[in-house]
């Protein structure tokens, strides 16, 4: 469903007062293929390039070279209008649920906004959109009484549910989950992870789950890739990666996982 082929992203260097900084290669030759209906985990530490990759996939940035194809269509070749239409099909949930909701909009406006933007393709009237918003809230475990509140009235876990509802509004085929539970407490994280697993099973979604937390990846993903300094260093089924890591980096990371285990 999503093919990333040999993608490289280089940020140009800067002229500085005390010398120039060299160009930064955030991604070099990254290739991944994600099949429909699977849950693909991407693990990386800070500065590994995982955020740059998500931005390239969403076309918030253009890769320096390489191709990203979604359903066989190359993003770089799409017209702005076609790109906007494509955006209905691939959605994202960001890490920080406090920053990713516009504080001045009500939950209703937040969740219906994608439907307003894509009303031409979806063909939903105002009343139908409101009804669908209520449905979506129900889907993520919130109630219709929450529709007309503002983001600041919700806890972190609830906000993340609102973000998920917004992501699902246009019935996307694929959802990018960019560290969706990193800002949450463990007990809340478990609920959100279960919700995501449940939604995937019910709606047949494809996930690209990005995280630095190996435990979370192991729990939700079918296949896993490790990214390190802009390169994919390991890729395989989650089981294989965790049980028989091939690269030194993977072995080191797995050994460093803080687990509740006494042996």
């Amino acid at each position: 469903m999503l093919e990333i082929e040999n993608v490289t992203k280089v940020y140009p260097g800067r002229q500085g007062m005390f010398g120039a900084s060299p160009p930064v290669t955030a991604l070099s030759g990254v290739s991944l293929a994600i099949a429909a209906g699977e849950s693909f985990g991407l693990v990386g530490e800070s500065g590994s390039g995982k955020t740059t990759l998500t931005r390239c996939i969403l076309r918030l940035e253009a890769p320096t070279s390489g191709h990203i194809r979604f359903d066989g269509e190359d993003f770089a070749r799409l017209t702005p209008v076609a790109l906007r239409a494509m955006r209905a099909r691939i959605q994202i949930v960001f890490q920080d649920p406090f920053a990713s909701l516009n504080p001045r909009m009500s939950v209703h406006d937040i969740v219906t906004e994608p439907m307003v933007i894509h009303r031409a393709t979806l063909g939903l009237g105002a009343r139908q959109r409101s009804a669908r918003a209520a449905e979506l809230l129900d889907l993520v475990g919130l109630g219709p009484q929450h529709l007309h509140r503002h983001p600041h009235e919700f806890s972190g876990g609830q906000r993340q549910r609102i973000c998920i509802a917004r992501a699902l509004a246009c019935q996307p085929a694929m959802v990018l989950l960019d560290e969706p539970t990193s800002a949450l407490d463990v007990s809340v994280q478990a609920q959100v992870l279960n919700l995501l697993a449940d939604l995937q099973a019910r709606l047949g979604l494809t996930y690209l789950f990005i995280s630095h937390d190996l435990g979370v990846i192991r729990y939700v993903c079918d296949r896993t890739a490790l990214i390190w300094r802009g390169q994919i260093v390991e890729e395989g089924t989650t089981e294989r990666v965790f049980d028989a890591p091939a690269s030194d980096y993977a072995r080191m990371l797995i050994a460093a996982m803080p687990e509740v285990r006494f042996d």
Partner: protein
Amino acid sequence: MTHAVASARGQALRRGWFRFRQSGLSMLGAALVVAVLAIAIVGPWIAPFPGHVAGGVDTANRFLAPSLAHPFGTNELGQDVLSLVLAGTRISVLAGLGVVVLGTLFGTLVGAVAGFAGGWTDEVLMRLSDLKLTIPGLILAMAVAAALGAGLLNMVIAIALSWWPGYARLVRGEVLARKEEVYVAAARAIGASPARILFRHVLPNIVSPVVVKMSLDMGFAILTVASLGFIGIGVRPPTPEWGTLLSVSRSYMPDFWWTAVFPGLAMFVAIFGFNLLGDGLRDVLDPRARR
């Protein structure tokens, strides 16, 4: 369900009002501003000697010291200084408002376009406003006012011309900051058009700092208007403008000090009021200033 919205908004407002009221200085500022605005509206009618406001003179009663009949004394033409000061309020407030509103409208437009479009549009617009920051504002205003000729409207235009870059920079900075917000990235990711992002996600979130700057700027605008009057490039007598009054009467110091001191004090009180109010508003509206 509208009740929920109302209560959330209401609570935020109540908190703000609470913070505002807690500060005695903000309340004093609000009171002064209300008084100044009231005088600006009714000033010419409550002036004890309306004839003097219109330019009438009473040379028999020149330079009377402050008394019950003339609390602020009389000037070199025998005009009642209190009446002139009261009538001058309207001129100053109107001119100040004009400058701030013009500057805000134009500056916000330029800043929003520059910040949102980026690229060369941004470069050109910002270099233009840099240029303006480099040319001393007062000198520019003086030059423009002198070239346009005396008159209230010309003066307002002249000052506003040097006023917009402040707003342009503020709005541009805020727009750039808001553009980096995750919720804007989220809006782009769902395919929102640039116009939608600007009007729905960016601009509503920068209203507060602009309002705060406007209220803080009212004082400075009044000050600048008076400055031009004082130099003699502005409203000409007999229109009773505070700065002009001061500039005429300074030659009668020290013996007839009241002719200069009272217009000056009026100026100070009005500016002080707007500054106190703006400062208080900033504490309430601008979350970064809350401490």
